[in-house]
């Protein structure tokens, strides 16, 4: 085993230990939380809501990201224009304003987003779609033009070349920046607190008004988010390693 392999293994072990320690601390804190036990139980739905908002927003953002990202590299003037405007607006306006807009303004016309969690999820997903679109565009554009030429010169169509040559390679390149984005979405889901979606941050403020334990409560909330984000980045690292191409770019 050479030094590099050893270092990698070491790193993996470290991150696993870190994860385990985090989880232990979280549960310890959970049990340490003062007062009655039904209150400990009630953290669970809040955590569940945070997870649900994040996952749905991430998946939705990925779908939007693929469509808008491909639109951004389209040579069609209109498609490209629409995609660019989408990205610029969603990226250029504070997320909190987008959440407010969705919940307070759009819900007047679309009653189904009257629910705070739904409004927050939609806003987060649409917003993340803009960022994921840029990541996907970057991934595709960083694949050398020679790959497309080689595919086309063998008689493959543009669509075939995209599907079998460009996207599979681009997909591998975007894993690290996507990890960033997913972690950001999880953290940004806390903004849903502002419109009263009953997720972790919102719940923590309620807990504080009841029990006035800001130090432990916020520490606890911080650890919940930290656990979720570490878990996500660890999963992404596994994905990255699984799709690693021998002798070529990316993680070992």
């Amino acid at each position, binding site marked *: 085993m050479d030094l590099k392999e050893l270092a990698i293994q070491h790193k993996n072990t470290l991150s696993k230990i870190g994860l385990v320690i985090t989880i232990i601390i979280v549960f310890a804190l959970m049990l340490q939380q003062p007062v009655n036990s039904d209150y400990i139980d009630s953290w669970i739905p809040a955590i569940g809501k945070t997870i649900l908002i994040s996952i749905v927003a991430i998946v939705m953002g990925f779908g939007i990201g693929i469509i808008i990202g491909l639109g951004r590299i389209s040579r069609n003037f209109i498609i490209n224009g629409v995609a660019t405007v989408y990205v610029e607006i969603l990226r250029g306006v504070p997320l909190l304003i987008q959440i407010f807009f969705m919940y307070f303004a759009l819900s007047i016309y679309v009653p189904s987003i009257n629910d705070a969690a739904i409004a927050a999820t939609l806003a987060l997903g649409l917003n993340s779609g803009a960022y994921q679109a840029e990541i996907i565009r970057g991934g595709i554009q960083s694949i*050398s033009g020679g*790959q497309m030429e*080689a595919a086309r*010169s*063998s008689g493959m169509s543009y669509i075939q070349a995209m599907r079998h040559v460009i996207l599979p390679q681009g997909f591998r390149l975007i894993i690290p920046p996507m990890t960033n984005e997913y972690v950001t979405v999880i953290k940004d889901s806390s903004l849903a607190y502002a419109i009263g979606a009953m997720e972790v941050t919102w719940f923590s403020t309620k807990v504080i008004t009841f029990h006035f334990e800001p130090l432990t409560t916020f520490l606890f909330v911080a650890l919940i988010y930290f656990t979720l984000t570490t878990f996500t980045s660890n999963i992404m690292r596994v994905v990255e390693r699984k799709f690693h*191409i021998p*002798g*070529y770019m990316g993680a070992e």
Partner: protein
Amino acid sequence: MVTPLIEMKNIHKSFGENHVLKGVSMKVMPGEVVAIIGPSGSGKSTLLRCINRLNEPDAGDILFDGYTIIGKDIDIDLVRSQMTMVFQSFNLFMHLTARKNISLPLREVKKLSKEEADRLALEALDKVGLREKADAYPGELSGGQQQRVAIARAFAMHPKVLLFDEPTSALDPELIGEVLEVMKKLAYMGMTMVVVTHEMGFARDVADRVVFLDQGMVAEEGDPDRIFSNPSNERTRQFLKRVLQAEQVPPPPQ
């Protein structure tokens, strides 16, 4: 009379202000090996890439097997599958093994079954002496091996002509030989080839005809022995003198 496999008529191509090809005409007969030589910037690669319309010519006509391939109603993908290309920078699909690099276009373009494509891929790898590297990824191969896989990928399609765009220019000197060997083998097998090259030894020994391109025009073309020993064009003479000195290619046998 035999129809030329490729006939280029008065091809013009500009990139912005840069008028690269200024009315180039040339023919490639079936079974012929044509070497395109000339100084850097003379438009050699552009000319080659115009043949399969990777670069779209601004004016002029290209006949393939007697039929024009210019125009909106032409299925260029079908045409390209019969005139596959080998690139200077190999351009192997980096996420696929050597075998899959070859079988992907066979399956996608020729619609062969997985088994058939795999069989042909291994056969092609055999011909370039890399069967044992079938499951290696491009990143695990040397430059010379990558280019040999790229050549296998190109001829596994059973094209009517193979286009080579400076296939050895990106290789370390000690790896050039193995690639030229494979190309020679293909030439002797009767494959029609158009080769843009700086390898004067290859042009002289293997090509049936040499086209000397200078400043976007065909300055001279003909039998390699004559061009290398007694070029009629002054620019050709100067160019050959310069590169042959640099390469120290021994004079042709008398």
